[in-house]
């Protein structure tokens, strides 16, 4: 597979690196791991196969051999030659065909799965690119124009080898990006360090996404959240989903590339099922936060897993 145009920021990602936090190694991985899993299942891959995370589009790929592709994520215009490929559909690409990603209307990222997966070496248990520490993925960096990327052996899938599928993944899975979304959260470990008024503000006001956001975290402008005390906190673990409040009072929602520890007070934690929506936030989007219980967070996560299991079974029946 040849990268004709690498676009704004495209990197190889799988479901991330685990087990190395004690050494300061972040998760990395697809910021919406669920979207990548769905895309992988659509093309007949193992759900943890490496794909491409595409930020703000501009990517143009040419394939050397026949492959099945599918993508999920923000609202991008994606074309095979002059034929549109909507999110959540599978397409059969012949050798020499080109796949093009335009700029997104809503959201900022999408995940492309290619049958066989992206074949880069496994480093510390994962094919994900760690863009902060520059290792893993394709040569430890984001893709550049002209890169030639190896793909894994095509799975022996009997999927009919023509055009674009008429059936699709559920809409919410294929296109999770929303205009002005609401993110659900559980109370943060340090929420008692904020007074009730501040907590109310956090839960009621809209926050604006700052341009200063990246794979480490989404920064917000808007109301400043004031702390009750000014005690220096001892650094401890943070995780994707953690909302921390630095001295500026402007909250930061941490994403997959976030560092492993932090010393800012944690006012909230966005629940796992909403991290895919968070991964779509881009400058000047408005966001609101809504509190849920941890039991609900777990219930939602389990429901989604059960639905994914049904989807997986459906796909296997279809291709048999």
């Amino acid at each position: 597979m040849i990268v004709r145009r690498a676009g704004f920021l495209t990197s190889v990602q799988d479901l991330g690196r685990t087990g190395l936090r004690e050494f300061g190694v972040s998760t990395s991985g697809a910021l919406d791991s669920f979207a990548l899993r769905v895309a992988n299942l659509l093309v007949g891959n193992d759900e943890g196969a490496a794909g491409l995370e595409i930020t703000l589009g501009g990517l143009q790929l040419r394939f050397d051999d026949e492959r099945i592709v599918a993508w999920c994520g923000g609202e991008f215009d994606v074309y095979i030659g002059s034929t549109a490929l909507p999110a959540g559909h599978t397409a059969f690409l012949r050798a020499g065909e080109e796949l093009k990603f335009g700029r997104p209307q809503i959201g900022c990222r999408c995940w492309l799965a290619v049958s066989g997966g992206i074949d880069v070496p496994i480093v510390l248990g994962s094919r994900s690119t760690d863009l902060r520490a520059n290792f893993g993925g394709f040569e430890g960096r984001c893709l550049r124009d002209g890169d030639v990327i190896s793909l894994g052996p095509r799975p022996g899938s009997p999927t009919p080898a023509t055009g674009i599928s008429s059936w699709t993944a559920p809409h919410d899975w294929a296109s999770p990006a929303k205009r002005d979304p609401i993110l659900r959260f559980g109370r943060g470990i340090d929420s008692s360090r904020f007074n009730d008024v501040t907590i109310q503000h956090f839960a009621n006001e809209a926050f604006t996404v700052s341009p200063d956001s990246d794979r480490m975290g989404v920064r917000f402008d808007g109301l400043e959240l004031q702390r009750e005390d000014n005690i220096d906190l001892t650094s401890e673990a943070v995780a994707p989903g953690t909302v921390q409040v630095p001295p500026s009072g402007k909250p930061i929602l941490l994403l997959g590339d976030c560092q492993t520890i932090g010393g800012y007070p944690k006012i909230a934690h966005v629940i796992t099922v909403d991290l895919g929506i968070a991964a779509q936030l881009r400058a000047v989007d408005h966001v609101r936060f809504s509190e849920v219980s941890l039991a609900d967070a777990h219930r939602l996560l389990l429901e989604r897993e059960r639905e994914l299991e049904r989807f997986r079974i459906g796909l296997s029946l279809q291709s048999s």
Partner: protein
Amino acid sequence: MEIVPLGDSALIVRVRERFEDSPEETLDEVLQTFQQLRSAAIPGVIELAPAYTTVAVFFDPVAGAKAGERPGEVLGWLREQILHVVAAGGDRGKRRKIKRAVRSVEIPVCYDPEFAPDLDDVARRAGLSTKEVVDLHSVAEYRVACIGFVPGFSFLAGLSKKLATPRRDTPRKEIPPGSVGIGGAQTGIYPLRSPGGWNLIGRTPLNLFNPKKNPPTLLRAGDRVRFRAITKEAFETLKRGEAFE
């Protein structure tokens, strides 16, 4: 001991309230908890991360549910498991064993002005000569309180109070790998080219983070660390040796 949720997929086990009061004991206790939890291999637990006063326990709620726990009960169940593991391993014999297992690592550091752009500042603030700063820094024994910030960055406790220096007002955009710095009451080593606000007083030729190895870091939480002052010639020789690794 306090166990609090860090979102829906992690818990933080707070072993002690404060670190500074007794860094050595706190570290030993945190590492003991870390090792107990690791050997217990509680189902659904993905990884553990010690830091200063806490051990974070990352888990997969889906695996917890497969183990038969209802959505509302996964956290409570895990909390019980953790308490059980920690209570069962609380005897003094084990604690002594862990103490003996602490590794000692010597880090050669070149304090040459070329590698130490902030050595003069640190000396001026402390009212010491640069030689006295180097002597104080390299005679002390430190312990790795935590690894984080970037892969392999080790936060070392045990810096002489005389050398405590606030972070620079404007962080540097790029710090060369191996740089040894002072940030507040801590000292540490930048393993990778990264931005940073600590005062740089030397550099080690050793490679602190190598993703081709597992474990990928030279240092681990709890390690005892000493710095050995070396000449620039020794630095260059060691650096060449590291490059062949």
